[in-house]
């Protein structure tokens, strides 16, 4: 899923200074799972903003709504009838949701309420870690299903570097060395001999480097 983290309240208050009617718009997907932008977080943020408005003596209308998704036209249509009541929306969806909402409603200011961080997984409640950077050309078949692009701080295709110590990365003793994980896994699979296969120079044109990407599937288009 896409993992996001809450933005500091002060930052959001800063965006909203000139606005009088605000919709806090949550998303029921990834950001709900990572507890950054679901219904619960919408309530908490709305309450905090109301309290702040009260404290500052501002008369501001703050409403709450959580959509099933903000990355789908279908669900964004649900606010078409009410959007004119607001001069600002704080979207607690990921950056995709913020932009897609803005594309649908060009005359309303849409602010991000979370920092979108990465594609990752829930290790346990309150701990999410990165697994994929969407490079567009998956190489997990050759790396024991551990991704060096997402998990090595230098995205080395032929690691580990000389900084790997006791299974940890040189940048931080709390970060696993991806290449230690790869070696451990290849060993468990009895495929350590694969380690010596040189990974060729990567074609990054399917990554961010190639510009904004799209997936076109004519077979499923209507």
């Amino acid at each position, binding site marked *: 899923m896409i993992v996001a983290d809450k933005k500091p309240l002060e930052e959001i208050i800063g965006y909203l200074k000139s606005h009088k009617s605000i919709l806090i718009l949550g998303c029921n997907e990834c950001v709900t799972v990572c507890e950054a932008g679901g219904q619960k977080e919408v309530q908490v943020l709305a309450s905090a903003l109301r309290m702040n408005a009260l404290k500052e003596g501002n008369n501001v209308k703050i409403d709450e709504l959580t959509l099933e998704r903000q990355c789908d036209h279908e669900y964004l249509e649900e606010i078409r009838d009410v959007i004119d009541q607001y001069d600002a929306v704080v979207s607690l969806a990921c950056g995709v949701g913020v932009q897609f909402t803005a594309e649908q409603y060009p005359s309303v200011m849409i602010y991000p309420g979370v920092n979108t961080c990465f594609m990752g997984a829930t290790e346990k409640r309150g701990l999410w870690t990165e697994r994929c950077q969407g490079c567009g050309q998956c190489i997990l078949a050759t790396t024991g299903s551990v991704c060096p692009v997402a998990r090595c701080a*230098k995205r080395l295709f032929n690691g580990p570097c000389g900084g790997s110590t006791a299974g940890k990365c040189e940048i931080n003793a709390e970060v696993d060395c991806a290449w230690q994980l790869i070696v451990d896994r290849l060993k468990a699979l009895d495929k350590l001999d694969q380690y010596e296969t040189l990974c060729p*120079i990567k074609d990054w044109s399917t990554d961010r480097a190639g510009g904004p990407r799209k997936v076109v599937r004519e077979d499923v288009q209507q």
Partner: protein
Amino acid sequence: MSVKTPSKLEKILSEGHLAVTSECGPPRGSDPEAITKKAELIKDHVDAINITDNQTSVTRLCSLAACIRLKLMGLEPVLQMVTRDRNRIALQSDILGAASFDIHNILCLSGDHQSFGDCAQGQNVHDLDSMQLIQTVRHMRDEGKFLGGDEIKRPPQMFVGAAANPFADPFEIRVPRLAKKIAAGVEFIQTQCIYNLDKFEAWMQGVRDRGLHEKVYILAGLTPMKNVGMARYMKKRVPGMDVPDEIVERLAGTPKEKQAEEGIKICIESIERLKQVEGVAGFHIMAIEWEEKVPQIVESAGLYPRPKVD
């Protein structure tokens, strides 16, 4: 191994001499004397001088310009190049720039992570990794072509090196990793600073078991300790560094004013022992901001005078 480039370092190694290299870190400013003075201190005692490339990710005068300074002094530079800061366009371009000054040695590295340096908020590039940079230089040299396939007019003639750290984890892939670099085309290796000689010798045993010492020249890396504080720092804070307790204790047991001398002594003793290790083709002495000690180390270790080659 037959000679493939005009590199003096390659020639010395191919003739079976124990090679001696050292390195100079460029300044955090543009004063060329910071390079030339360091080089003057060591030039008669080493065969080639590495210039580090923004080591520990701290921004400095560039490796290429400093190598040109050495070249203008008639010395033999080893251009260190990390993949952290440049994509494949910039790497190939700098290789050609170096080749235009007839710089004949390159050391291909991935580089320390930028979080250690003065631009921790910067991007890292790592378009290629160190092994792929080795492949790139060999491709440019041997095929005379760019990565994109076009022909290079006057291709680089570089003796291609890389680092090896026998002390990093996981130990079991440290020999296979060297084999991988050899498969990528590396021709000489400069190792991480060796303090744990037993572990280094165990690694070299693995290297010899696979005959890798006959496919690549291995220069053993050494850094003299200035004092016990440096030993403790390297033991605890420098990733991938293996400083055994005996070294720390030996320096701690030496009076403060004699610790530098003791550090030099440890370095010389290490060289003497490593000379006996089959497959060690020379020494890379990294006297960090202590270049003036290199001549003493080289002389005391019986590595002086340096061989003359054409």
